[in-house]
């Protein structure tokens, strides 16, 4: 069967890589859709407590986050080891919560301002004293929608 005889001496053709960009683009789109931008650099330790009954926070753009926890090792020289508050990129005090909420509110569109939610990301080892203080400040700033950020417990 001469038809199927291999004609020797020919080089093997190079594998076509034309579809490689397509594959990589697919990966890229997957990551673009499923992830969110990292907003701030964490300066406090943040190990969230666990809970079962969680609701997802929708509309990322309407959420402002307040972090509470012990300062990380490189900041302990300046801020001590007691739990502190981090808003945006800096560690600040409870009294600054009001102005933080005000500036966050300024940054939103007018019709969205009363839909703003505060996500409280507090370390599990924090004491309630500081959390209660923050809550009082939030009430004074009339930012009443709050979400206690937790990790979903897998049963």
């Amino acid at each position, binding site marked *: 069967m001469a038809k199927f005889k291999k004609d020797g001496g020919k080089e093997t053709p190079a594998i076509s890589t034309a579809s490689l960009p397509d594959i990589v683009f697919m*990966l890229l789109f997957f990551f673009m859709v499923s992830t969110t931008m990292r907003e701030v650099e964490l300066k406090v330790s943040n190990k969230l*407590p666990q809970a079962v*009954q*969680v609701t997802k926070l929708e509309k990322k753009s309407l959420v402002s986050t307040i972090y509470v926890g012990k300062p990380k090792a490189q900041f302990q020289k300046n801020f001590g080891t007691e739990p502190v508050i981090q808003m945006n990129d800096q560690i600040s005090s409870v009294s600054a919560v009001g102005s933080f909420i005000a500036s966050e509110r300024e940054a939103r569109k007018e019709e969205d301002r009363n839909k703003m939610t505060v996500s409280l990301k507090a370390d599990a080892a924090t004491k*309630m004293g500081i*959390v209660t203080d923050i809550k009082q400040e939030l009430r*004074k700033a009339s930012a009443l929608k709050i979400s206690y950020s937790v990790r979903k417990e897998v049963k």
Partner: protein
Amino acid sequence: MARKTPEVNASSTADIAFLLLVFFLVTTTMDVDSGIYRKLPPIPENQDIKNAPKSKPRNVLLVRINYTNLLQVGGNQMDISRLKDKVKEFITNPNDDKNLSEKKFKDIPLLGRKAVSKGVVSLQSDVGTSYEMYIKVQDVLATAFVELKDEVSMANWGKTFADLNEEQQEAIKKLVPTAVSEAEPKKMGGK
């Protein structure tokens, strides 16, 4: 005959795409923000707290957590594992006990006239209470109310709350409101 246009070299597209991919991998995170959603009570306009409307004592289930993370429910110390059933019993009040919450008849869309519990769970924590314990209690309270909603949904439509349509969910929410109040902070014990 038209001249053949030379093929554009596309081998660098992959590199460009890889660059973009790496950029997104580095700057983004996977975690979805999820949490226990609560509404804080507004600060009363006249600073007089005494004038604020008060619920009858039998309609308030006081849950207190002290600085050693011990739980006190309605005056008795209680383990967290029993809290859920206690809350459910308090809200439903199946035997019309005089010490548990009152009921009030209200007109509810789709369901007609139904008894709605006037009970409120009031959560008080201490300065020294750990946040982890606080969240645990909040979680148990939330679970209790979700289960109550599910039970009522089952009784009325034979489906769980999550499977109901929006209108039905609204009705159930009116029938079983999530009544967890975060009390005004009080200094008790501790430092």
